[in-house]
């Protein structure tokens, strides 16, 4: 049995001690638990990666409205805008935003997606990972390695905190997805172990307190648009970390703060749709129209 890895500190020292990458240590650890072989984990990662690519492909070409009729054509609008007018940020950033919207719109259509870590946050990791991989000729194998790196970051957070809006608010869903995405990105860019963990810490730190207050109780407002926002957020975290900027609060302590924040957050703001955006005047009017 390998040493138990339940914290980022343990992960860092395991990597240093064995002179291995995060995904190698993560795979060793999964295998040591005796439930999965390395082949199983890589196969599941490949299955998720394929589902992510498929959801992007379908989502980019769909304007089918969600069952509520509140959303479904934002990705189309964004693609048209970029085609006509370009964007402030470069080509990869455009792709990241459109892929994130494409995936999260597919999700609200009850289409098939890969939850990563959850369905509400399913656009963030694939958008960052796949857009960067396409534009930089990252091999399929290295994409899987990046996804496993992301998975390890999510797994370590999940040791202390359930990744559910109802338990920890959106910080535990889109927030953690952003930390996972930045880890995947920093891995693909050749970042060091320290830089990958720092990127995750920086991303998490910046989402503390993010509530889950979906309008009409649907995974639509603000969830769909939050995906492209937090995908770009992941890129920022990677840039900072690659520049050697350190999170002064270590990753594990940020997770502690996140867990505590989740507990302190009112149940009204944790996926119950009884506060925040969900109880605005407009939301209540929408509720009357849609859920009648």
């Amino acid at each position, binding site marked *: 049995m390998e040493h138990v890895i339940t914290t980022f500190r343990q992960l860092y020292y395991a990597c240093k001690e064995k002179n291995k990458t995060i995904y190698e240590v993560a795979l060793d650890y999964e295998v040591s638990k005796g439930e999965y072989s390395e082949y199983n984990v890589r196969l599941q990662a490949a299955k998720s990666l394929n589902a992510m690519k498929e959801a992007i492909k379908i989502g980019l070409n769909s304007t089918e409205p969600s069952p509520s009729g509140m959303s479904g054509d934002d990705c189309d609008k964004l693609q048209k805008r970029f085609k006509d007018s370009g964007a402030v940020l470069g080509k990869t950033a455009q792709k990241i935003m459109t892929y994130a919207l494409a995936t999260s719109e597919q999700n609200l259509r009850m*289409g098939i997606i890969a939850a990563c*870590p959850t369905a509400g946050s399913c656009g963030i990791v694939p958008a960052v990972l796949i857009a960067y991989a396409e534009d930089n000729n990252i091999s399929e194998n290295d994409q899987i390695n990046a996804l496993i790196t992301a998975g390890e970051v999510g797994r370590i957070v999940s040791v202390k905190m359930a990744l559910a*809006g109802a338990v920890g608010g959106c910080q*535990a869903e889109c927030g953690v997805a952003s930390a996972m995405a930045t880890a995947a990105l920093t891995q693909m860019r050749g970042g060091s172990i320290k830089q990958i963990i720092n990127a995750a810490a920086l991303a998490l730190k910046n989402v503390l307190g993010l509530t889950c207050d979906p309008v009409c109780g*649907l995974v639509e407002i603000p969830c769909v648009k939050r995906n492209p926002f937090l995908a770009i957020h992941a890129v920022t975290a990677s840039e900072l970390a690659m520049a050697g900027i350190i999170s002064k609060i270590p990753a594990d302590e940020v997770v502690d703060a996140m867990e505590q924040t989740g507990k302190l957050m009112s149940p009204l703001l944790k996926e119950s749709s009884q506060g925040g955006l969900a109880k605005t005047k407009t939301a209540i009017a929408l509720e009357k129209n849609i859920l009648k």
Partner: protein
Amino acid sequence: MRQSSIIDIISPVMAGPSSSHTAGAVRLGLLARNVYNAKPDKITFKLYNSYALTGKGHGTDKGLLAGILGFSVDDVRIKNVFDTPEAKQINYGFEYYEDFNRHPNAVDFVFEGGLNMTISGDSIGAGEIVLTKINKFSVNLDGKYNTLLLVYEDMPGVISSVTGIIQKDNVNIASLHCDRSGKGRDASMCICLDGELSKHCLAEVSELKHMYIVRYIKKLES
């Protein structure tokens, strides 16, 4: 306690829109279906707290029913499950409750028919689920292991008889959870296994004296 694996974090591949409220609901339904293991006359789904408040919007009702019908989490039929021929063949209803003593995403499956059974479960995040109660017994069933579930009369030697039979199959026990309604009364045993039990072994357990319910519940596909 069991930790999540990387696979839990980067999957499942599923019908949207919510891992806890849609995929988790399907998996709770699938597991409850395997525990009940018969065709009921009627099923009532009791949804609690966030499951009750936002369940409809997340397709929780569709997910629970799809699971009971045996659909997997990535089945494209979930979206329109109420219109499927399978759904039209069963009698079901939904009830909604607030009870802050229960988990935010909790459900009771109330099966009525030849066998009446109430199964309670929680969707604990990222599509992970746990069945917590079967009738009056507390259990701990997460669908990640092949599990032997027994209800029997509480008396000395039952646990060792059962584990002795399992040992003959050379299958390792991952966890064992027991509960009882009182000394010498009904008791339950929930045994999570690392391998497969043979038919012979199951038959032998069923033949033990004072066994009321014997269920072998296969682990759910991730």
